[in-house]
């Protein structure tokens, strides 16, 4: 895969799955929580992303369940997915650190 920055929705979906496998609705609620209610994924967007992540081998189907006659498919991160998420998180962290340090040079020094 290319080294282009990951879209925020993709990043949040992978982050949601980093805590353990989840089904579609679980991912939506978790992403909403992770992002402090800022990002509310819609079903179409979610499945476009899941389909691509699966094709890229970053996630896989763990198991299926039927609850109240509704199908739930649980997804989990693959090791490639974990690697990719860790890389992206490190990249974001390093950018954010520089940004914060330059905005408030003293606070940056004090906190680290």
């Amino acid at each position, binding site marked *: 895969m290319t080294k282009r920055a990951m879209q925020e929705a993709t990043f949040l979906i992978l982050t949601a799955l980093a805590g353990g496998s989840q089904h579609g609705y679980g991912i939506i609620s978790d992403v909403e929580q992770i992002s402090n209610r800022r990002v509310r994924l819609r*079903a*179409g967007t979610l499945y476009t992303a899941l*389909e691509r992540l699966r094709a890229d081998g970053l996630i896989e189907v763990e198991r299926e369940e039927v609850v109240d006659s*509704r199908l*739930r498919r649980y997804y989990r991160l693959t090791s490639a997915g974990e690697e990719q998420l860790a890389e992206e998180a490190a990249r974001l962290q390093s950018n954010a650190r520089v940004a914060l340090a330059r905005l408030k040079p003293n606070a940056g020094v004090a906190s680290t």
Partner: protein
Amino acid sequence: MTDSRRLERRYRRLLAFYPRAFRREHEEEILSVLMATAANGQQRPRLAESADLLKSAIFMRVRQTKVPTTWEYRHAGVMLPVRLLTGTWLVFLTAVLYGYGRGGWWGVLLVPSATLQFYIAYRLRHPRSEQPPG
């Protein structure tokens, strides 16, 4: 018919826009997400939700469309010069039409066609990196 049955039927109508293979695999799953996020007593999909489903369906259909086709990759040796010649011919035609002041709306048709020909020709130049399976 209850509200939820009605809503489900309307969602299914929207999901019909997805490619068949995707629906076979995911329709029930997406439907369960849609029904879970729906408000109590909701009878029809929200506008933003419908727009999102349609956008996603179109996106998936476009992504499935292979340009150039597998057939063209397999016959890249012949297709590359054919595409290049067609593209050049279209550019020539456009130039002549406009040269004689008869271009008008033809450009809307000719310029994208020529661009497409060159784009396909360019893609065919790298059959190894872009070769689809099978």
